[in-house]
């Protein structure tokens, strides 16, 4: 009996969107339009995708035009998140372009009467023996791409790629230095009017009465919109909209709101709420070794704000019962699904089109402001309405990264070797994204006359990297462990996805206690880690970082060194970080040395840029950042109250990439945060002899730790 040969599978994004023409088209005189479903959020993804397409098609990268994602035509690739864009969109495009190239070679072979195997492609020109030639563009009429991808296409071997794997300049940067409009904030649609939404200062308060008299007389006012607890203004200029909003605020009466936790006892709050408990992973020891003692350590991380430099912005225009939305959302289809629920419209009536915003580090207010614009545009008589949030609203009403309490118990034998390990997490869920539930996740949906409840954040399944539990299963070979995640079922502080989800907190906790155990044993922390790793790629990044940082430099007074390591999501990029800090009355991170392995690095300089950025952002989280609140208000609503690291404060960052062209690429955007956090905390111990287990590591926290230790 003959077995059917296994059918090779299409890449996941391509299986969901198999039509070739939805990804690539040859346009006009010598252009190639590439249409990914993933979006540019400041990470340089469009350049990496252009490189992949240029390579597989054998065209100059300058010919490639990246089409912004839109529900009108783009493949549906869900959300641009989780460091998956190169992995998902990149693989799909590589496959599509390889197949398109193959189909064009077949058509050229027929037209030129030359065996396809003898044909060559150079910048889109197809030529063969006897100086015969044609091109993609000449053949475009003969080759229909309105067909589904097949599983057979074979991409180029890694060694023959000329573009992917080499650093190229990002395609979007010239526009940005020459101030050519590219951001949604700078887009001027014809007849554009401006909207602003009235939001409470008191957390969870609802608008119960509104005196519109003062706002009605503001010059330039177009409309005042009220839908239950949602209220806003539309005006013919931003200045007029601001003035009208100010007047409207004076006429607002709010309900009492909902109490916030005690910001100085986050662990107490997180551990006293109703929870849903999941055992994430359990490993039973082959042989039970007796524990001589158990090390119990408690860690916390605060709520962290996205704090993009631009406040969120969107535009919307109604045409009868049809709607067009411009957004910097991470997922145009997902946003459309939520809009359809709120508006009770078929999704086909809505087009959601992406435009670039400022750097996006997860689920911020981009989706919320889109619904704001849609609701206000109802009163604009068919004119497009642009809404831009205030800095205050951005820092208080957008979702935050969730606070976490983490406890690890490590059972140690008489030699302080680990024989048992229990890791427990208390946290809100780390995802309440739109488009994934029967209820919308958008802020205004909780405010309108028939409101939806605030969506309580959940955690993505472990197969997708988990949420609060992300990176909680050690990559180290420990004999036994139990990992437990407790997800809160209440959510007084709104949380959703922020870079790494729970990964930063879990890596901080794991790498901190490991460091402590290494010190107990009198063993070098790097040697200790290497001894517990079975994955050579993991060991390689640690060794590379150690070599580059000349581990371990001679002990100097006032200077400390620390190491941190993780493989993001345990399935993505490997990253090791070594921090050099200066600790006197305050902590200054002087230098971060990192080694990273993302498999095939499509644009190595782009990977370095992402790792540098992640390292600096993580340093800012560790040293400075904490969402502040009293029992009724979020109080960190400006850059003064929510400081981030400045130019004079950022560390030098040195990155080494271990290039592995034969291994499928993974993303780099979230790889550095966990390792850098742990490296800094461990360097603080090396420098000052105290363990700070509550982030951020501030002067006050260090003093408290010293008092506790003395």
């Amino acid at each position, binding site marked *: 009996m003959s077995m059917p040969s296994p059918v090779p599978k299409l890449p996941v994004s391509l299986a969901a969107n198999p039509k070739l023409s939805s990804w690539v088209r040859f346009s006009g005189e010598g252009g190639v339009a590439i249409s990914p479903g993933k979006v540019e*959020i*400041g*990470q*340089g993804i469009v350049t990496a995708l252009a490189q992949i397409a240029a390579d597989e098609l054998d065209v100059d990268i300058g010919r490639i035009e990246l089409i912004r994602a839109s529900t009108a035509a783009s493949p549906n690739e869900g959300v641009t998140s989780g460091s998956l864009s190169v992995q998902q969109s990149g693989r799909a495009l590589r496959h599509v372009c390889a197949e398109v190239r193959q189909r064009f070679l077949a058509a050229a072979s027929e037209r030129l009467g030359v065996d396809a195997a003898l044909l060559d492609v150079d910048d889109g020109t197809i030529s063969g023996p006897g100086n015969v030639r044609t091109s993609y563009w000449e053949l475009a009429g003969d080759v229909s791409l309105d067909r589904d991808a097949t599983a057979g296409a074979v991409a180029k071997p890694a060694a023959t790629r000329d573009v992917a794997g080499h650093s190229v*300049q*990002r395609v*979007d*940067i*010239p526009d*940005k*230095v*020459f*101030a050519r*409009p*590219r*951001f949604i*904030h*700078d887009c*001027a649609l014809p007849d554009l009017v401006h909207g602003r939404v009235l939001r409470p200062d008191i957390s969870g308060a609802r608008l119960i009465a509104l005196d519109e008299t003062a706002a009605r007389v503001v010059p330039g006012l177009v409309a005042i919109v009220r839908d239950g607890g949602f209220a806003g203004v539309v005006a013919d*200029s*931003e*200045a007029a909209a601001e003035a009208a909003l100010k007047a409207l605020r004076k006429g607002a009466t709010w309900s009492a709101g909902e109490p916030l936790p005690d910001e100085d006892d986050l662990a107490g709050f997180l551990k006293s709420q109703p929870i849903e408990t999941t055992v994430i992973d359990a490993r039973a020891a082959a042989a039970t070794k007796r524990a001589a003692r158990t090390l119990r350590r408690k860690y916390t991380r605060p709520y962290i704000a996205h*704090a*993009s*430099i*631009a*406040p969120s912005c969107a535009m919307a225009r109604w045409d009868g019962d049809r709607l067009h939305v411009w957004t910097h959302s991470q997922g145009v289809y997902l946003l459309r699904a939520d809009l359809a629920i709120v508006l009770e419209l078929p999704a086909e009536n809505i087009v959601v089109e992406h435009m*670039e*915003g*400022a*750097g*996006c*580090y997860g689920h911020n207010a981009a989706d919320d402001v889109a619904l704001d614009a849609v609701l206000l545009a109802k009163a604009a008589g068919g004119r497009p309405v642009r809404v*831009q949030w*205030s*800095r205050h609203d951005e820092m208080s009403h957008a979702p935050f990264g969730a606070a976490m309490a983490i406890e690890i118990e490590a059972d140690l034998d008489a030699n302080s070797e680990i024989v048992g390990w229990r890791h427990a997490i208390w946290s809100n869920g780390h995802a309440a994204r739109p488009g994934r539930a029967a209820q919308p996740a958008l802020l205004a949906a909780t405010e309108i006359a028939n409101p939806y409840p605030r969506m309580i954040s959940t955690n993505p399944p472990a197969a997708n990297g988990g949420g609060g539990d992300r990176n909680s299963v050690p990559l180290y070979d420990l004999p036994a462990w139990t990992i437990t995640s407790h997800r809160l079922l209440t959510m007084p502080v709104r949380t959703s996805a922020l870079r790494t989800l729970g990964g930063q907190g879990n890596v901080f906790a794991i790498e901190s206690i490991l460091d402590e155990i290494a010190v107990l044993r009198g063993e070098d922390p790097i040697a200790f880690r290497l001894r517990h790793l079975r994955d050579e790629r993991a060991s390689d990044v640690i060794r590379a970082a150690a070599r580059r940082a000349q581990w371990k430099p001679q002990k100097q007074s006032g200077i400390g060194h620390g190491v941190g390591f993780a493989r993001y999501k345990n399935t993505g990029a490997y990253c090791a970080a070594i921090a050099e800090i200066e600790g006197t009355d305050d902590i200054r991170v002087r230098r971060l040395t990192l080694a990273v392995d993302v498999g095939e690095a499509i644009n190595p*300089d*782009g990977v370095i*840029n*992402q790792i*540098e*950025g*992640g*390292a*600096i*952002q993580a340093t*800012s989280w560790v040293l400075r950042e904490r969402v502040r609140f009293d029992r009724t208000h979020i109080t960190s609503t*400006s*850059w*003064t109250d929510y400081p*981030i*690291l*400045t*130019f*004079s404060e*950022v560390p*030098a*960052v040195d990155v080494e990439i271990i290039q592995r062209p034969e291994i499928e690429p993974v993303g780099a955007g979230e790889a550095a945060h966990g390792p850098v956090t742990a490296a800094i905390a461990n360097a603080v111990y090396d420098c000052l002899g105290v363990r700070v287990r509550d982030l951020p590591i501030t002067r006050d926290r260090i003093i408290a730790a010293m008092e506790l230790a003395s």
Partner: protein
Amino acid sequence: MPTIQFQLNGAAMAVEADPDQTLLDVLRGRLGVTGPHFGCGAGECGACHVMVGDRAMASCDMPMWSVADKDVVTVEGLGTAEQSHPLQRAFVSEQAMQCGYCVSGILISAAALLKRNPSPTETEVRAALDRNLCRCGSHNRMVRAVLRAAAETATS
């Protein structure tokens, strides 16, 4: 409303405006000059920086009355793709950004610095950019780009 006269990117401007309206509002809302970006509205992030004389200043809290007769330069006035400023070239060479939203303000702060101090040290560059925030973590690339532009100007 009074007419307020000032120089914008080398051209004479006369704008009828409420003297209390901000320069950023007038630039973006009235004149279509969208290089300066709104970030906070409180002069805390630098995304809206413009050069007034040889100083980088926040335009989001700068009232129009204070702009009268001043010489204002936005990132559009630094240079174009055809005739670029050394800083613009250096930011491309160093790939000195991720999202780039803060970059127009940072280019202005750097240009003002180089106007006052054509060969700054790295510490001076960082100090000059301390009123500009970058959330993506591209600081070190930007500092390298400013030093590169300074070096290029010095040798040309």
